[in-house]
């Protein structure tokens, strides 16, 4: 939901608050991931999201348009994740060795 004139200035937290529950889901650090907003198309690092919560759940909103990008709820026996507000999530990952690098290392 876009709220003209209210760019989320009331959010008490940024996306770093999501590091804990997201670390239960992802092997990589998702706070440095870049999400693309389904509403306005802006790309943002998760750490820069405007985050409301932490209870009843974490709601991460787009710094550009305030749409809900992702939500995380930790119940006693599950982690619930909603990524419905993003079109993509890009997580920096360790470089996969190229095939020739692997071949070369095998020869030495």
């Amino acid at each position: 939901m876009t709220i003209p004139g209210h760019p989320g200035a009331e959010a008490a937290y940024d996306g770093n608050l999501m590091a804990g529950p997201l670390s239960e889901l992802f092997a990589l650090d998702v706070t440095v991931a870049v999400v693309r907003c389904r509403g306005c198309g802006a790309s943002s690092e998760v750490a820069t999201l405007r985050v409301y919560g932490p209870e009843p759940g974490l709601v991460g909103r787009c710094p550009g348009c305030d749409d809900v990008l992702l939500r995380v709820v930790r119940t006693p026996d599950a982690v619930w994740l909603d990524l419905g507000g993003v079109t993509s999530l890009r997580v920096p990952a360790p470089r996969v060795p190229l095939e020739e690098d692997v071949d070369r290392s095998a020869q030495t």
Partner: protein
Amino acid sequence: MDFVTRGFQGRPRGRDERLPPGQYLTDDFPVLSAGPTPPVDHDGWELWVATEDGARHTWSWPELMALPAETVTVDIHCVTSWSKLDTEWRGVSLDTLLADVETAADFALVHSYGGYTTNLPLEDLLDGQALLAFAYDGDDLRPEHGGPARLLVPHLYFWKSAKWVRGIELLLADSPGFWEQLGYHDYGDPWREQRYQGD
């Protein structure tokens, strides 16, 4: 213990007996929000009710104010475990709002300014159990607590009492709301401690 809904009839009088399982008492009024407070003033405010066959009823703020209002004193229970006793609200009963709405719906999905939603069985909004509240403790309902008008359904966890209400969608089938889609209980009875799905 019976589990029928209690509406505004209240619980037994002892403080401990009025505290549902897993709850603690607070004298504060914590503000929980899933987003920024939407800027809605009385001039721009409108409430709609839409039925399953597409009929739409609307009320402006003056039209809401012209309806008979009532004052209730109730206990409220948040799923995050705080409870607050003897809170005083003034508003229009949902029985009054829905009196001329013809529907065969069994469910309601409440929509808020700002995009929040929550779902309830329609019967939980009727029979003196729910108010569209516009005043708290004798004053206009402040924006951070849901003003201009919020739902008040005190027999369910307080996330069902949606702030900044702008519409009620009447449905033949249940449709989960903002938190109900993400692990929270579909009904949310504090006396049965229905916090999460499966409780």
